[in-house]
């Protein structure tokens, strides 16, 4: 009984919070919610840049967080299918169930790439709704910002003006940044790149880079020696200019290919928190572009 009181005492401060609790599946959405919501929101990300968003344990701590969430922001398109549905059914929180204002799947609001024509698991871990890693196209962040801002307003009418103001400010800074990044990334146009997983496609599409191969033999399956050998052969014939991987990928395979082919490899932040410089969304793109430019030169 004493224990129950202790638990309730722990609960009290949470209940007293007046801010909108945002549960983001990935750090980029937590960062975006923070940009738009300022001090009127409390954000938490289910994953860090060091974790593969496909493979997350449905941990008790995540259920506890969703239990208290007012707004859930996830990439969607089945990226989180291995863990999010379970958290949702266990949470006993109707505010964030699919179809409610508190449930936001970011990928539903952008044009998706790589929608498979054939869906077969023999092809690897394919996402029937298209590639879900949408956030590395800065224009997608811009689109999701509008939707997210509208949701914040819907959930918390009282602060509508505050959200509108912050969103306008963010969009202005973001648009300016996109112009800057476009100029910087001009040097990346047409550059052939080898990726680890197909989580870089939206950036390639935005910057006009060309994907020359991936370290994974099939999406979601770890690199195999035979596939790497094939890739080495392929790179000998038509070399790429850079090999990229994410903080949650094992650098070993990228390093191997780089050693064999003398093509430089670089770890990109992939999401907010992926590198020291990628502290926020602006830093994420600044650092991604800088690292690529430095490597490609």
């Amino acid at each position: 009984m004493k224990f129950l009181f202790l638990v309730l005492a722990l609960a009290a401060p949470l209940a007293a919070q007046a801010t909108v609790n945002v549960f983001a599946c990935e750090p980029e959405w937590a960062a975006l919610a923070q940009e738009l919501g300022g001090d009127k929101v409390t954000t938490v990300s289910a994953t860090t840049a060091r974790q593969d968003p496909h493979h997350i344990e449905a941990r008790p701590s995540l259920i506890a967080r969703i239990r208290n969430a007012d707004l859930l922001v996830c990439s969607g398109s089945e990226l989180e299918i291995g863990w999010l549905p379970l958290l949702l059914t266990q949470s006993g929180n109707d505010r964030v169930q699919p179809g409610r204002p508190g449930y936001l799947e970011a990928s539903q609001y952008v044009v998706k790439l790589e929608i498979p024509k054939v869906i077969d698991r023999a092809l690897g871990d394919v996402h029937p709704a298209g590639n879900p890693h949408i956030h590395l196209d800065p224009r997608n962040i811009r689109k999701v910002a509008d939707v997210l801002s509208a949701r914040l307003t819907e959930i918390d009418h009282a602060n509508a003006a505050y959200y509108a103001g912050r969103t306008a400010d963010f969009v202005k800074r973001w648009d300016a940044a996109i112009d800057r990044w476009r100029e910087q990334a001009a040097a990346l146009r047409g550059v052939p790149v080898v990726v680890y997983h197909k989580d870089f496609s939206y950036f390639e599409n935005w910057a006009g880079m060309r994907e020359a191969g991936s370290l994974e033999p099939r999406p979601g399956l770890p690199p195999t020696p035979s596939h790497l050998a094939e890739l080495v052969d392929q790179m000998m014939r038509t070399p790429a200019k850079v090999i990229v991987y994410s903080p949650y990928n094992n650098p070993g395979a990228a390093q191997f290919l780089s050693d064999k082919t003398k093509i430089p490899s670089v770890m990109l932040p992939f999401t907010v928190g992926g590198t020291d410089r990628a502290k926020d969304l602006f830093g994420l793109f600044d650092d991604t572009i800088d690292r690529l430019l430095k490597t490609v030169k």
Partner: protein
Amino acid sequence: MNRIVWCAAAFAVAAMPAYGQDADVSKLREELRQLQQRLQALEQRLQETESRSSKAEESATRAESTATQAAQQAASRPQTENALNPGISAILNGVYSNLQRDPNTYHISGFAPTLGDVSPGRRGLSLGESELGFMANVDHMFRGNLIASISPDNSTIDIEEGYIQTIGLSNGFTIKAGRFFSSIGYQNAIHAHAWDFTDAPLVMKAFLGGQLNEDGVQFKWVAPTSLYFDVGLELGRGRAFPASDRNKNGFGSSNLFTHLGGDIGESFAWQGGLSLYATSPRDRAYTDLDSTGASVTDSFSGSSRTWALSGILKWAPEGNNTYNNFKLQGEYFRRRENGTLTYDTTAASLGTMAGGYSSRQSGWYAQGVYQFMPMWRAGYRYDTLNSGTTTLGLVDSGALTAADFPILGAYNPKRHTLMVDWSPSEFSRVRLQFARDYSRMGLADNQIFLQYIVSLGAHGAHTF
């Protein structure tokens, strides 16, 4: 370019010695400056127009590609009514078993037989139970889940789980109704295909008759705390061991449970659970060999309470479980039964007699599974049971002897299990397991299993 020329000219003019009148020169300079300004303004406008047109061009290209992709996305959307079909999954598994002792004589000495599915299975090659699952949101309030298992030998279809669950309640409440795996301990609520070893821990075999699925209702509340905390109550019919299906109104079993869980840094996550399952079986029968060597049916009536304490600790470096991870899992069960034991209910041997019965039994297991490289895991499990103290009125009074109840004789079964498995993707797994099982008094049983488990179609998320 022009600007540079003009600037140079301006500089030249400015630097020229004043040949003519100062006024003329300054007028010239002023004109030059104005011209320069106009030129700059023009240049700027030109740049703006240029960038605007390139932007327009880009947005046109973008619009075009958007239109193409929108058409593609629209086309990829299913237009037929089967778009609303539930998710369908099938689990296939097959096993090769090499068992030193005849599995048909399998029993756990010291513990009343459960009539459940506890034996190590058939020798040689066999198809395991195939699971067929349907799941979907019913509407905004409910989610439905049906999982049937098809037994390969007698072609019976058994409903493992078939329940509805609320998704539309708030404040942390969920209600489940139907048939579901009871939240006793930890592993009981998890489907066999997601277990880390081929077979169930001995505590589940001895205390729950394998895996206990109850027909009933489950109420659960998740506290609004940052530390995970839930409490729940299950009320069921008591359809299977340790209950006996009693043909009565009301509830035949209850299970009260609670869990606590959280993270320790980024790399560790844990969960602890405690549950109390209570039921009052009537005429729960089993067969034994009495002192005359006759097969007799004995039955128990009374109360049965089972406590289960469980703990899970998972580790993955920085929470990234793709390459390495470790899972430590353990459960402790303790059961107390008080009531009447009736000997030879069918009067097949020494005649029907009844006396008091009281037992206190316990058991635990601990297992660790380590993923040492992508796709590959190895694990070890240690099981042990304690038959504890059993008091039989019929033996104490001298009416019968302990030899009339050999299966209840004191014995502490134990088992060592080693396994290694390979999962080429998250949808398939091949496992090799070796166990030395001392479930039967005085007999070691070396068991080897080679098993595959694959999952087709929709694949639900796995519980922690």
